[in-house]
């Protein structure tokens, strides 16, 4: 049986080999998930390292979210590979001139760091459960204690020190991981749409706003599900964080686009034809107007008016949803958009996303939902809200 290949329609002059679209929606999902990891970790760090007390209710949720999404980060890549069984070759025999070769190391390091930090953060809870519970779950918690049942003040203070340093290390690790994803595109000179020094930074800031937005939505949703009052101060803290970073993200993306247009290198006519044609809706309308400017203006208004209570929660949640959508569109416009502009600079291609199949829309949606399902499961084993955080325990100890 001949393999199935799907050639895409095109306009103008494109190289014959370009008519098969090589990087599908899954490659857009990959940086999206990585970005959510980095963004969620930012929230955790803002509390653990920088002492943003307002974010305390979401600090552990941020850590768990980051871990759940990180575990699923390699899946779109594995599904995309022609030989997934050889994936470890990149780690076993890395080719160091490749930006992609370091992924295995970056990702593994970061997963280990996240697991360690989560373990330290939950250690008092694990010990408590190990002593309280019986049966299979009891054994599970007892295994997780790794034989350490010491929750004395001294031990907790020691844990706290570890958490602080892991969180500090995690900041460059998480942001480096995502900045590197941007570098993977920005360093390619074959496509004018990708080839930009600003790409890693743009990816980074969009990652931060997406992760913080995800936490805002998750926090509000979790409070609703658990039928507990929402901590408005926390929501406001998240709103401020999104607001601050969205300004930088928007400016950077604007600068990037201005750079391409102003430099006006070979192929810019095709880029202009593309952004004012097929990309007009996904880029200017969905990514910028609806996904970024609308929430930015709404957040600005709420901060200016000092909105609080239910109106603030609703405003921030909707803004966060829009930002999440905007950042996905940004990934789409980079990955898919970049390939829709031919390398010849004289033609455009039109990607058609399939619903089914290994690299279709359903798999992409499933990959975005899977970390949330895992989070739901993990949050039952390690509730990020029932038990006080290590930090809160230390504070409580100090107050005694």
């Amino acid at each position: 049986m001949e393999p199935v290949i799907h050639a895409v329609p095109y306009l103008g002059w494109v190289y014959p080999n370009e008519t098969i679209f090589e990087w599908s929606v899954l490659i857009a999902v990959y940086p999206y998930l990585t970005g959510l990891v980095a963004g969620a970790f930012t929230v955790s760090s803002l509390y653990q390292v920088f002492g943003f007390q307002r974010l305390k209710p979401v600090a552990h949720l941020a850590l768990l979210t980051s871990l759940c999404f990180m575990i699923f980060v390699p899946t779109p890549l594995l599904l995309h590979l022609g030989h997934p069984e050889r994936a470890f070759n990149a780690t076993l025999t890395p080719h160091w001139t490749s930006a992609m070769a370091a992924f295995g190391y970056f990702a593994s390091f970061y997963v280990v760091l996240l697991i360690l930090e989560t373990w330290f953060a939950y250690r008092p809870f694990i010990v408590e459960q190990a002593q309280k519970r019986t049966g299979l779950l009891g054994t599970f918690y007892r295994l997780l204690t790794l034989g350490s049942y010491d929750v004395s003040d001294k031990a907790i203070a020691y844990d706290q020190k570890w958490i602080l340093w892991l969180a500090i290390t995690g900041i460059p690790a998480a942001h480096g991981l995502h900045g590197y994803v941007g570098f993977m595109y920005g360093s390619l000179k074959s496509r004018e749409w990708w080839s930009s020094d600003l790409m890693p930074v743009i990816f980074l800031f969009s990652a931060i706003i997406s992760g913080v937005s995800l936490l805002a939505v998750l926090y509000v949703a979790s409070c609703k599900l658990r039928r507990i009052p929402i901590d408005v101060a926390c929501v406001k803290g998240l709103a401020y964080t999104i607001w601050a970073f969205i300004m930088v993200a928007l400016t950077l993306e604007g600068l990037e686009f201005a750079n391409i247009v102003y430099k006006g290198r070979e192929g810019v006519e095709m880029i202009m034809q593309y952004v004012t044609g097929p990309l007009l809706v996904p880029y200017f309308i969905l990514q910028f107007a609806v996904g970024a400017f609308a929430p930015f203006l709404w957040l600005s208004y709420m901060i200016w008016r000092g909105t609080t209570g239910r109106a603030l929660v609703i405003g921030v949640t909707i803004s966060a949803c829009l930002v999440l959508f905007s950042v996905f569109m940004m990934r789409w416009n980079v990955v898919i958009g970049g390939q829709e502009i031919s390398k010849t600079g004289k033609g455009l291609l039109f990607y058609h996303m399939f619903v089914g199949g290994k690299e279709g829309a359903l798999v992409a949606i499933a990959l975005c939902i899977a970390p949330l399902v895992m989070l739901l499961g993990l949050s039952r084993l390690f509730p990020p809200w029932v038990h006080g955080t290590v930090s809160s325990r230390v504070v409580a100890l100090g107050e005694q």
Partner: protein
Amino acid sequence: MKEKTTLDARRAFLGKLGLAATCTGAVVGIGALGALPSGTAAAKSAPGNAESGAGSSFPTPDYDWTKHEWAFGVDATKCIGCLRCVEACKRENDVPRNAHQFRTWVERYVYLEGEDKVRIDSQNDAANIEASGSEKEYRFANRYKDAKAEKAFFVPKLCNHCTHPTCVQVCPVGATYRTKDGVVLIDHDYCIGCRYCVQACPYGARFFDEEKGVSDKCTWCYHRITKGLQPACVEVCPVGARVFGDTRDRQSPISLFIRNNRVQVLRPETGNAPNVFYVGIDKEVN
């Protein structure tokens, strides 16, 4: 007693099997880590499975890749767009028989009277496929026969086997590499199929072979040139538009081609330093 003998024999056999497995594992492991000395026969002869059409006689015995520096020339003024090169390449290298994946292709540039933009197409264009009647056969439709063309020419294209290849730079596992004789190859047994190299090539020379799950591209028919033969496309070109040879030999066709013509390369601004040299191309060709 008989039972005991059988048992002993079985033990001995298993012991030998274990030893063999250990030795094989060690050799594979050392090889995989790149620990084999560079002067060994394995390292000296060209790498194995880069050639799909190579057969069992590849790698070529006694071929020393340190003694050659291959290069390719294209004289666009000679090309007649017959596409025999494309056909030969597809057959020789087992390239998927469709209109979307090519190791080599030919571009047609036509400037019509009264138009300020060049018209470009290749054999994969829908009108050309319609003319050939099949996605497995290639010819240029005579679509401009009633138009007044001011200028028209064909440009054969293929992998540029760059001195600084971006595809090699980005390959995360080193499955694609530049040989000592200046050819960029792909180890199909090691390629993970990530397609980063396909994206990185500024010339659109690479494609992804769905059936094999690996990237593929022109190898200058490495299995042929190491035997002293010409690449298939050069061999079949009826007008000598494609030139190939060893630049270390001052009198080789390619050395003469480069020396006797004002040659240029595609997209020199990339810094890739291509090794396919063109004569007779226009500003629109990239």
